[in-house]
């Protein structure tokens, strides 16, 4: 299993565990006093599950298992967009987890702008990953383009 696959899956597992913790907090009865930003984490919770866990698991496994486009160390093609995608996605999502609940309870200001940055980072992560994986969705009976 290649390193970036392990990074995606392990990071995904951490998000999965954290999301389940947040899910628990969200169903704590309202009679129990919790900080207001915690109560505002419903959208964050869904995105920790769907982006943090499901998307990262797909990214990691697809990078590992999809058809090769080259040989040897280059068999998976240019890996730089995938590494970029990993860091962009995790930075963007972490920023969201921090800024979204705080922006809900104190709208505008720095938290709002951090959400804009988070959106851009996550969008770039998606774009970088698709740029990498697109040529690997290929007919394995045809010769590889990067064959050496």
């Amino acid at each position, binding site marked *: 299993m290649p390193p970036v696959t392990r990074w995606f899956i392990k990071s995904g597992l951490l998000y999965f565990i954290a999301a389940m913790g947040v899910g628990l907090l969200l169903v704590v009865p309202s009679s129990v006093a919790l900080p207001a930003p915690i109560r505002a984490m419903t959208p964050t919770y869904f995105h920790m599950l769907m982006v943090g866990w499901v998307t990262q698991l797909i990214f990691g496994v697809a990078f590992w298992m*999809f*058809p090769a486009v080259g040989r040897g160390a280059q068999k998976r093609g240019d890996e730089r967009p995938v590494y970029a995608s990993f860091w962009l996605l995790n930075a963007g999502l972490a920023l969201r987890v921090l800024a979204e609940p705080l922006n809900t309870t104190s709208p505008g200001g720095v938290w709002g702008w951090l959400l804009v940055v988070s959106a*851009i980072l*996550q969008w770039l992560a998606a774009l970088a990953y698709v740029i990498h994986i697109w040529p690997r969705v*290929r007919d394995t009976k045809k010769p590889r383009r990067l064959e050496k």
Partner: protein
Amino acid sequence: MPLLSRLYIRTAALYFLAGFTAGASMLAHKGVFLHPLMWRLLPLHIEFLLFGWTFQFALGVAFWILPRFEGGASRGPEAPVWLAYVLLNMGVLLVATAGLQGDAPMLTLVGRACEALAVVSFAFNAWPRVKPFRVGAHDGLV
């Protein structure tokens, strides 16, 4: 990777980008006001990323990697998988369009029906392929 899987996975990737674009726009809008109708994108965002991306990607990979049959069409009849592809994407686009319009329950109903039929159609191909390796098509139906 067979043609149908490539079609499913590349279409899923396009929905992924479109869904992430909608999501990123709404997230940015949550922080800094961008457009009064931005939240209309929410149903499209959910539809594109759940059905268009995640489920379609899973179906494409399943058609590729589920056990094959020996001899003949190794992955079983392809017609139901083609039909599922058309129905699923019609459904996703209809439900997303209904969401953009705000209140279009009939369009949503037709879209969801297309998606449901797509799943049934796909299952016609996938069901007998969920079997031990080196078992014929008929045995897999048990």
